[in-house]
């Protein structure tokens, strides 16, 4: 079995570029949790990190909006945003075209991904990498689920994407770590920016940590929008990780509803053992 790690974390740009708006102790507790997750990944000696993001019109627009996409290149570039705004320096991030292609071919047996031989990473991938692999030495496979332009990817297909990724990871000789990045409830770039529904978040995370597939797939988009804002649509990336973990249980290492970061900041890890 070549799947060695599965976890989730937040990707909101404010976590990096509005760092000073939060008291040091809360901020450092979050950063420490990212650090702990980064060490947990490295401890498993993965050959590649698959990062399932939910990007914000970096590469994908409604002229050709894939439900799922995966990168298939030897390198990527990011952030696509202004470096000064995101406060993360632009760089190349190593990929592995050959390994990507083998994973994609296997995933395509059951889930229809768009493959991408070029990819500009936005904060959905760059913020997690900034904390988890600050030396950027671990090659990545970027992946994406459409959480932005309706019709959105159905939740049960996001779960199935995770299942397909697990089977693909188990079919290759390399050691594969997979993370999903997203918000839970949040209302980015809208009149309710900064709002967080902590109760909803904790309920969702309990379903996630419990590996409770039916409960995770029971949300309607209308209910999610009402309770968790359009940022809540990004639960798709966390649900994909639940699919990766195949109903095993996980643990929430960190949750803190930090309004200036505009999201309930989350670190969670699936127990694959």
């Amino acid at each position, binding site marked *: 079995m070549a799947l060695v790690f599965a976890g989730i974390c937040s990707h909101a740009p404010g976590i990096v570029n509005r760092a000073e708006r939060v008291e040091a102790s809360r901020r450092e507790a979050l950063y420490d949790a990212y650090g702990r997750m980064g060490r947990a990944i490295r401890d498993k000696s993965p050959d590649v990190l698959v990062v399932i993001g939910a990007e*914000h*019109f970096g590469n994908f*627009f*409604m*002229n050709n909006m894939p439900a799922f996409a995966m990168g298939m290149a030897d390198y990527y570039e990011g952030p696509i945003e202004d470096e000064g705004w995101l406060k993360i320096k632009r760089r190349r991030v190593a990929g592995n075209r050959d390994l990507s292609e083998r994973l994609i071919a296997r995933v395509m047996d059951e889930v229809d991904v768009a493959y991408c031989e070029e990819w500009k990473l936005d904060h959905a991938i760059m913020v997690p990498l900034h904390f988890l692999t600050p030396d950027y030495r671990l090659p990545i496979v970027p992946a994406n689920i459409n959480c*932005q*332009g*309706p019709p*959105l990817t159905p939740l049960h297909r996001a779960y199935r994407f995770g299942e397909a990724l697990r089977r693909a990871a188990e079919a290759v000789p390399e050691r594969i770590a997979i993370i999903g990045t997203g918000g839970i409830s949040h209302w*980015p*770039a*809208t*009149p309710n*920016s900064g709002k967080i529904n902590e109760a909803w978040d904790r309920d969702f995370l309990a379903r996630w940590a419990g590996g409770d597939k039916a409960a995770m797939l029971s949300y*309607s*988009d*209308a*209910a999610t*929008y*009402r309770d968790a804002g*359009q940022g809540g*649509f990004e639960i798709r990336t966390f649900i994909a990780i639940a699919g990766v973990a195949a109903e095993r249980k996980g643990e929430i290492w960190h949750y803190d509803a930090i309004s200036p970061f505009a999201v309930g900041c989350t670190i969670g890890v699936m127990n694959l053992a």
Partner: protein
Amino acid sequence: MSLYYVQKLLYNLNREPAMQRDFKADPMRVMADYDLTAEEKKALTDADIGLLYVFGVNGQLLMHFAALLGIAWDDYLEAMREGVRRHGPVRAGIYALVEE
């Protein structure tokens, strides 16, 4: 209503400095390449953030357009609220997924 072309214009504008210069100099010429209604053209040239929000423009596109226009963050948020007060609820797109 052609939300797609409003968003396409903003998507391109946000990432192309040359197009930003052209849009400042002669917005009608730039907009001629997009299938827009008169109301949409007016909202874009007036930089009417509130009405663009009501059209359904995704905030991940709209906030960058506001920044381009030099609109401060708090004014951007308030403009969207004012848009809803004046024009009613969002008409299409991701903020209109309300059927249950």
